[in-house]
């Protein structure tokens, strides 16, 4: 009797968390898989169409455009973040004065909602009057016409995303840097290592795992990019700055084509799991180690 109660207790404790996740994420996600093989719209019973939705989106130019934009933005944003974030982490780690205040300034963009970030960046890059717009003109450089030029729109989205998500990348690298024991550097200094050698042989290899984790998470989260694009360009002009999530949104909520939206959604899910495969496998191995 007592043994029985002990065996049940943990399942009762995890039940609320599991039920929420199952009801609101797992079951809907499975239903999206089901819908992706059907045509469906408001008030219409799903009709089985096999792979037709996948064929439809894969032969849709807008889908490929959105996917290309997504990949371009991810490649720019994530790698810029890693490089700048690493620089910032090493800079702050070698800094002793006002560290809490500097940390607060660096973390500040974490508090900013996408809606505010868009206000800020529209203001700064306003072509005629904005501070950056004026500075670019003064330097004889072209301003960012993000509302007109698709490429400029994507650059704005990328800049804004880097700004918004840098605190996340920074803090992971900063914490990893602080975790490196100082005597390693002292030993390096005694052996006569130059700062560059210390960075190449010591800092970089020891930070590599943290860099991979930060990159992985940013890849997965950048893949769902929606709000920045939606609020800045709405996917326009003429659907040229759409990303995958915006494409999905338009299919589902503007054209009410739940089938093709679901097919897009399921491809997003597969891509996310594909990106996370190595990470999930290592977690799985760690968890089930020593259990038959």
């Amino acid at each position: 009797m007592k043994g029985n109660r002990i065996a049940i207790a943990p399942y009762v404790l995890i039940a609320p968390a599991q039920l929420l996740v199952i009801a609101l994420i797992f079951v809907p996600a499975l239903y999206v898989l089901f819908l992706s093989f059907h045509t469906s719209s408001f008030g219409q019973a799903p009709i089985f169409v096999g792979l037709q939705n996948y064929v439809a989106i894969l032969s849709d130019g807008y889908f490929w455009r959105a996917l290309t934009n997504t990949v371009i933005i991810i490649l720019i944003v994530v790698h810029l973040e890693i490089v700048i974030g690493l620089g910032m982490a090493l800079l702050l780690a070698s800094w002793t004065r006002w560290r809490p205040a500097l940390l607060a300034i660096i973390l500040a963009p974490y508090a900013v909602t996408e809606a505010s970030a868009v206000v800020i960046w529209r203001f700064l890059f306003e072509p005629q009057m904005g501070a950056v717009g004026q500075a670019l003109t003064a330097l004889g450089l072209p301003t960012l016409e993000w509302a007109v030029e698709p490429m400029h729109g994507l650059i704005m989205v990328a800049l804004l995303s880097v700004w918004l998500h840098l605190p996340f990348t920074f803090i992971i690298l900063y914490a990893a840097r602080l975790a490196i024991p100082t005597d390693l550097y002292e030993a390096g200094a005694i052996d006569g290592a130059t700062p560059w050698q210390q960075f190449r042989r010591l800092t970089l290899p020891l930070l590599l795992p943290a860099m991979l984790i930060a990159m992985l998470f940013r890849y997965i989260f950048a893949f769902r990019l929606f709000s920045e694009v939606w609020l800045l360009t709405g996917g326009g002009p003429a659907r040229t700055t759409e990303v995958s999530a915006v494409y999905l949104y338009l299919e589902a909520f503007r054209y009410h084509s739940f089938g093709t939206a679901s097919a897009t959604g399921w491809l997003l899910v597969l891509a996310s799991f594909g990106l996370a495969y190595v990470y999930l496998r290592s977690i799985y191995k760690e968890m089930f180690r020593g259990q038959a």
Partner: protein
Amino acid sequence: MAKRKSLRISSLFKALAMLAVCVWSGLPIALIFISSLKLPRDIFASPPSLFFTPTFDNYARLWAEAGNIFQGLFNSLIVTIGTMSLAVLVSLLAAYAYSRYRSRWLSVSAFFLIAIRLIPPIVITIPLFPAVNALGLNDTHFILIILYTAFFVSLGTFVMRTFIDQIPRELDEAAIIDGASRLQVISKVILPLSAQGIVAVAVFIIVYAWNEFLFAFIFTSSFAKTAPLALAELNDSFDGVQWGVVFAAASVQLVPILLFIIMTQKYLVAGLTAGATKG
């Protein structure tokens, strides 16, 4: 001699780099707040006016012309507090179970919890939107609270677990020998001792729920519309004409959460490191 000179140059270089970092991270935010206190003619003054008489005109106009931003702030507050309470409670219970018990099924469920978090939120809106409408939950605080909790519970659970793991099991066992139930152990022993972890998780949830846009955009329209959504609509409708009012709106949404982050940055750092490495 030469070494000292190169040292001075490198510290000058470092100082300049740090200045650049501060300008990049902090100036855009400072600019919004400062500009919200300027008259329209000063906002785009060239060169930028450093000295001006602060005015609350923009805030007065915000109150008079776009008052629904304040309703939005109130809705955000309800959703944030609701999400925080529910997610902390649910995560604490699950984290305790994962910290103190071992079984194959528990490992399976923990793995499930981590994996499910990888599903992009927008995907599940496709079937949820009609379901939420059918249940009459559209445009309610409740739907946002449970959705936010569902997406936050795995991070919350595993961050909290790293903190509970540090509490010696002997304390639980002593309490149980004294006749405490599991729930009493959690509320009387674990809760006070894992306060740090609870605050770390709460900080994340508060920032997330206060700022979330996508679910609010899809599932609310008027009654439960949150502040980020109201702000985005204001920014769109004014189309750059009434910048001062938009800045005032952005400031009232941003300043409270910014102060909150500054006050709790210690926990944010602790939680982010625990969360990023533990799943």
